[in-house]
């Protein structure tokens, strides 16, 4: 199982959290395609809280957090 957490504008028209069944070879790219999120809208992509790449293969149990461009301070 892969838990996907969405934030900020990515929540518009989507759930805050989506769960995907794990399969060998599942990547962030597959997930954002399924969720209809454009690659350009992914500014911060974390796998278990650590910077990842959307083409990295995921492991069963991973938590993915996806943010559009955001900042502050």
């Amino acid at each position: 199982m892969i838990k996907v957490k969405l934030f900020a504008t990515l929540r518009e028209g989507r759930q805050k959290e989506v769960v995907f069944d794990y399969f060998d070879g599942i990547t962030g790219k597959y997930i954002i395609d399924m969720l209809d999120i454009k690659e350009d809208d992914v500014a911060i992509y974390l796998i278990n809280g650590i910077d990842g790449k959307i083409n990295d293969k995921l492991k069963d149990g991973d938590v993915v957090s996806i943010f559009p461009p955001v900042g502050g301070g």
Partner: protein
Amino acid sequence: MVFGYAGKILRVDLTNRRFRVEDLNLELAKKYIGGRGLATKIFYDEVDPKVEPFSKENKVIIATGPLTGTSAPASGRYMVVTKSPLTGTIASSNSGGYFGAELKLAGYDMIILEGKSDRPVYILIDDDKVEIKDAGNLWGKLVSETTDFLKNIHGEKAKVLCIGPAGERLVKIAAVINDYDRAAGRSGVGAVIGSKNVKAIVVKGSNKVQFYDEERVKDVVSNKIKMLRENGITGQGLPTYGTAVLVNIINENGIFPVANFQKSYTEYADKISGETMAKDILVRKNPCYRCPIACGRWVRLKDGREVGGPEYETLWAFGADCNVYDIDAVAKANYLCNEYGLDTISTGATIAAAMELYEKGYIKDEDIKEDGLSLRFGDSDAIIGWTKKIGLREGFGDNMAEGSYRLCQKYGAVELSMTVKKQELPAYDPRGVQGHGLEYATSNRGGCHVRGYMISPEILGAPQKLDRFSLEGKAEWVKIFQDLTAVIDSLGLCLFTSFALSAKDYIELYNAVCGFDFNQETILEAGERIWNLERIFNLKAGIDPKEDKLPKRLLQEPIPEGPSKGHVHKLSDLLPKYYEVRGWDEKGYPKKETLIKLNIE
């Protein structure tokens, strides 16, 4: 003809209730840009660094920059420069809103407050008409009461800067507030103004800033506004959610300090996030002068009142740092900080430190019995109640009004104060962001995130993504960020423009407005000059370079859980390299050749 600058300084002698208007030294202005830089230079030349912060010999400079009050985007900023009663370092606290621009349009680059009035006064500035007026009836009033009263007398157009009861009572974490809810928040600058018996400054301006090249300014400004609108952070993220959008990002990275930095991740962050704020309490945006970003928020409190909303740092300080996940309570505490004139970061973080002192048995029930409030982590009523008591120095709040360092010191537990140079750290655990931790340790005003915001490259990926755990190149990055920030602060622009703009863009604006010929090298050198002058002031004030450090917890106790689990901050590996790239000796003193290169006498 003077371009960009107003060309005048208003010097107010409070002791003798006199004022005089002086010409700005343009050559000096060019060397130190304006705002934070020029005010620091003038302060350094006029005030003994060893001055006691609340004595009449300390001065307060309220300074705009050459771009303040112009058509440049986000150009409403001004700076309050003085010696801090909290840190003993130079203080320079920045604020937005409308006051700074109005001061510039009244014809002044800066106001220098000196001496001390023997009774409460306010200063009225209407272009070249200046009066020092009695404020006896305003002493003790909240910020909104003071501002309403003065606007009633002097007109809706008048812009008001004032202190609340906290500044009057010399609370060491008191802020200066302008336009009801914008704060020059940090380092206790409000208390210094209070010590001079100044309650408020009211300003009305009807001039226009002159440009060297009107047409060029028009083109450059519209190009920069376009860049801000097209950038994801300044065009989308900040306008939609305000700074609060950071709550989830910082928490997901496991660097969101919880319960006075005992943990760095919470499963409840979303309850106090920008997303939740937008859904539950947001009324509208609350923008500053000429700002296309408009990150300020206007929110509805539980009792129905509509007020300025909490920033990210505030949501953290009263929220996760006190283990409170009640957005209504945090919005209320934020509102009280604005009314009493308190720094939200230091107030929330001091309450958090008091909560840990209580949890660990240092503060006993009998110490706070009379106050009728708990000091338990997670208590929403406590964050609201203690904020008022700090603002009034009432009951045990009197001890907390000294800030967390002096509070923890009183109990022999300074290690529980999450401060650098006695100023409370903001909302990012440096154990999981190495460059940002170096920035905390070396900030010239003590614990602070906006002297070189390394979160931008290390977390947000702007201008490029750096590995947050790596030490590689971080000293160099911190130096450049610190120097560029000094430039932006001195120009009078909002730091948030830097998510979209780079040094080149600031140079284009500055040159077009003033007719100067700065390039990348000379502008960053000006920033470096400002940084070094602040450092020299601090050294002469008696701040030992050994104070370039972080709380023991962050150096020795690994983060216990979450995505940054197991990490500590590696300051001792970073600091020597930082001193080297700064051109300082191994002990942290600027080398003579560095000062000669920067043309600092």
